């Protein structure tokens, strides 16, 4: 439609059942709309998004030759697409549509009928003034590159990679550590079934290691991402391993000979490892790497024992960090979590008393491949007679993390069971609330209660070793309040386990920058929609799985991994994707080449053309964020569908009515 053709606006006001109509006087809104310039028809209906509602719009477009449509209803995030399709069906360009949000931004935020009706009229008037300036925009398609990048090699990343690889597509799996496996590899048992963590995880790890469609890059990190949905260019940096994995036979002689002993990260510092080491015995790849910070050869050029004993000659002290460039169509972020180490740990004696452990430390203590071969022992080698498990350490606490870490109640119950089973010790669980929502979780709670575990409702204040009586001598005394009994308690125990919460993993800031993701106040990635798009993000083609978007247990993490795999496979099978037409453009007649827009573009979509002396915008890279339009000092860069005149007209409409 030509710009100067007379605009014929149709306004459709939705009752949304009673969601809108109980607060907004719909008749008044319809009447006010019908009096606006350019409005040919104004109507209302109980559910505009229903089939009869859509058909009503369709019929009116035909009957009244409407060329601009306004629906005053809910948020455009919910139904903009629905109504754009109606316009498309009617043969109109979908961008000749504007939604006035009179539900979330109006009816739901006040009970004052008069104010709500006034605001609805304002929003509708703004929309009418705006829609008259809307222009026809073409839809664009881009090809999808078939590869997928998965960042993070925990259970989530492993599952996502396997699903895609099994479907016959190439996956690059990038893991920061020398082996995949993540936190799940550190655990001995999983709740509520108490099946062996390694037994269910290692087969999957091995599948990843041998899968012809998976390019596994361990000791590697993503350092740069550019591009857009279907075409992401990714740079991966691989640390120097100093061991040629093509030659290494995994014999382990080098690790035996290494004279260096440093705390093992995998064993939470409870055990030592050499400077040449594998993360854990079942690691994938199961080949050692040299830790450059601790290797005597690399620090002082002394030693070299590993090189001497290595028969195949796999040790290579000249190995250097490498950069690899890959192109993929979509990216699955499965960067997981880390256990919180809040400063209050010291109030509970952590780092001061020998037998105060954090949850991940206890997991290692309890693991049959761990430092005690799975025996739950005190520092002096003795068996604990009594153990206290303190819930919500750093979680549900205004001073630390306000959120519930979701898995701690269940793993604490698991700990109780394991302590009971292995030591027969008396167990005290200090909890605020037991959160056991999940399949067979409540039943597991019941089972543990029947195992004679003492459940004390109350958050622990502190742990001390100062005895007040003989019974407390030589013990750790847990000081708490039993809020059900209204009593202050002192409970002497031999071991204290701190059920620390889950936090976003390190390096999230870099990921946020590279992938253009947003994080919430707690540092977790924000979903595209918390309910309806929990594994998608605001950046098309970037998906989030597992704990990087918030604490999850293993089944949830796996389910989200499978969901993201489905997302990535959907893109691959479509082959092409429609991208927003609401990009920016630069008017060459006005651009003065001041270059202000170039640095502000978050998608590197603008380049300077030396010959013409102006900035040039690559529309395929442009996401239509409008930053360049806001920055452009003389109106040369403009955001389609959000140009100054459209916005000013909308503001004017809102203010004048």
């Amino acid at each position, binding site marked *: 439609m030509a710009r100067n053709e007379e605009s014929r606006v149709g306004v459709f006001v939705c009752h949304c059942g009673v969601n809108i109509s109980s607060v907004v006087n719909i008749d008044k809104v319809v009447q006010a709309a019908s009096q606006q310039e350019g409005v040919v028809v104004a109507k209302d209906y109980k559910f505009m998004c229903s089939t009869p509602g859509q058909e009503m719009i369709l019929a009116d477009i035909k009957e009244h030759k409407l060329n601009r449509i306004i629906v005053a209803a809910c948020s455009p995030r919910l139904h903009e697409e629905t109504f754009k399709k109606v316009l498309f069906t009617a043969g109109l360009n979908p961008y000749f549509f504007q939604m006035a949000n009179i539900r979330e931004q109006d009816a739901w935020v006040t009970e004052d009928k008069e104010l709500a009706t006034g605001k609805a009229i304002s929003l509708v008037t703004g929309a009418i003034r705006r829609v008259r300036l809307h222009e026809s925009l073409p839809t664009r398609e881009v090809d999808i590159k078939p590869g997928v990048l998965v960042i993070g090699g925990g259970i989530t990343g492993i599952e996502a990679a396997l699903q895609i690889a099994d479907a016959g597509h190439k996956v690059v799996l990038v893991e920061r550590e020398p082996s995949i496996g993540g936190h799940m590899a550190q655990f001995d048992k999983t709740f509520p079934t108490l099946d062996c963590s390694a037994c269910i995880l290692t087969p999957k790890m091995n599948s990843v290691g041998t899968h012809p469609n998976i390019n596994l890059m361990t000791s590697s990190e993503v350092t740069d991402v550019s591009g857009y949905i279907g075409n992401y260019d990714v740079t991966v940096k691989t640390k120097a391993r100093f061991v040629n994995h093509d030659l290494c036979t995994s014999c382990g002689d080098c690790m035996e000979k290494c004279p260096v002993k440093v705390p093992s990260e995998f064993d939470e510092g409870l055990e030592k490892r050499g400077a040449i080491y594998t993360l854990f015995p079942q690691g994938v790849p199961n080949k050692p790497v040299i830790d450059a910070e601790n290797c005597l050869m690399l620090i002082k050029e002394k030693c070299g024992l590993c090189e001497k004993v290595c028969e195949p000659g796999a040790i290579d002290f000249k190995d250097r960090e490498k950069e690899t460039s890959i192109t993929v169509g979509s990216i699955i972020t499965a960067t997981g979590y880390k256990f919180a180490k809040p400063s209050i740990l010291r109030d509970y004696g952590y780092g001061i008393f020998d037998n105060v452990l954090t949850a991940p430390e206890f997991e290692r203590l309890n693991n049959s491949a761990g430092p005690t071969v799975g025996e739950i022992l005190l520092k002096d080698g003795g068996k604990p007679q009594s153990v206290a498990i303190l819930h919500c350490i750093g979680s549900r606490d205004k001073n630390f993390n306000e959120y519930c870490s979701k898995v701690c109640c269940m793993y604490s119950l698991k700990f109780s069971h394991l302590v009971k089973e292995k030591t027969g010790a008396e167990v005290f669980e200090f909890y605020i609330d037991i959160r056991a929502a999940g399949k067979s979780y409540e039943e597991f709670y019941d089972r543990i209660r029947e195992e004679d575990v003492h459940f004390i409702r109350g958050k622990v204040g502190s742990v001390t070793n100062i005895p007040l009586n003989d019974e407390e001598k030589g013990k750790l005394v847990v000081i708490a309040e039993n809020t059900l009994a209204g009593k202050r308690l002192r409970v002497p125990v031999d071991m204290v386990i701190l059920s620390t919460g889950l936090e976003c993993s390190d390096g999230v800031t870099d990921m946020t920058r590279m992938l253009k993701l947003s994080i919430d106040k707690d540092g977790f990635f924000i979903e595209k929609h918390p309910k309806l798009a929990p594994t998608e993000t605001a950046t098309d083609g970037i998906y989030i799985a597992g704990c990087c978007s918030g604490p999850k247990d293993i089944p949830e993490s796996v389910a989200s991994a499978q969901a993201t795999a489905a997302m990535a496979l959907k893109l691959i099978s479509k082959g092409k994707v429609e991208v927003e037409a609401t990009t920016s453009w630069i008017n060459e007649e006005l651009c003065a080449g001041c270059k202000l827009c170039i640095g502000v573009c978050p998608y590197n979509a603008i380049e300077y053309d030396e010959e013409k002396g102006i900035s040039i915008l690559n529309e395929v890279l442009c996401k239509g964020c409008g930053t360049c339009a806001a920055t452009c000092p003389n*109106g040369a860069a403009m955001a389609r569908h959000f140009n100054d005149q459209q916005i000013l007209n909308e503001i004017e409409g809102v203010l004048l009515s």
Partner: protein
Amino acid sequence: MSKLNLGIYWAASCGGCDVAILDIHEKILDVNDACRIHLWPIAMDFKYEDIKELEDSFLDVTLFNGAIRNSENEELARLLRRKSKVMVSFGSCAHTGGIPALANLYDKTDLLNRVYVESESTVNPEKIIPTPKTEVEESCLEIPEFYDRVYSLAQVVDVDYFVPGCPPNPERIWEVLELIISGKELPPKGSVIGATNKSLCDECEREKKDDKKIAEFRRIDRMIPDPEICFLDQGLICLGPVTRGGCGLQCVKQSAMPCRGCYGLPPDISDQGAKMISSLAPLIDSNDPDKIKEILDQQPDLAGYFYRFSMSESYLERKKP
């Protein structure tokens, strides 16, 4: 050939625009040959009454400089509009309010108090503030009424052409006068004459960085700027990006001073200062609110800097009570 009937008038202005006309030097004689000047208060003695006597549209052209600050300015603007075939808004003050319009950041009471009561050099114990009418024994004395805000000429009367600049460049003035004298076809009504549609950066030859970042606002009186590099890249606020080109780069090239914005806003921009704020904000090299405030505080008068010549055109209107 009959002579062109010309009027030149100043409203709220400093007189610089009138002097700029004289800066065309000996060409002023050509103007005199071609035109008959009926009004030019700064240079020649005429009475308002003489203008009132003229037939409507008698003047072929009036060059009107200065903003509309009081009732006299408005009265003369309306009178000259009626008497002129072509009304030219001449200079920054008439075009977009200019320096006088910076007073729109205050209201009338603030201004009169400051000038007549509070200013350090004033002795006015009775706190007398001028009013339009003052009763004295013999009669009632009248002076023009001081308005609550400053208007641009086009906000008061219909304007045919705009010649921007503080003051307009003498070469441009001569081009305008020559065009009128030659009798050639005039550009479309509303044109801004002698200015380009692109911003000043288009003509500026200074080297510009691709990724502009401002970590510090520096001030021109505290440094000697590099003559080859974009002022913004040196942390100096230059209004070139939000200002029309065509001025001949008098400041940025010949005087090595950042542009102050006198050529007015480019055609697609509706608020010069707001646009400059919008353009600068993403360049600030920090995400920390405290650091950002610290950077902004390095420039003590942002409103005055960004709206130096365009306050009467701003959405900000003026200080609200």
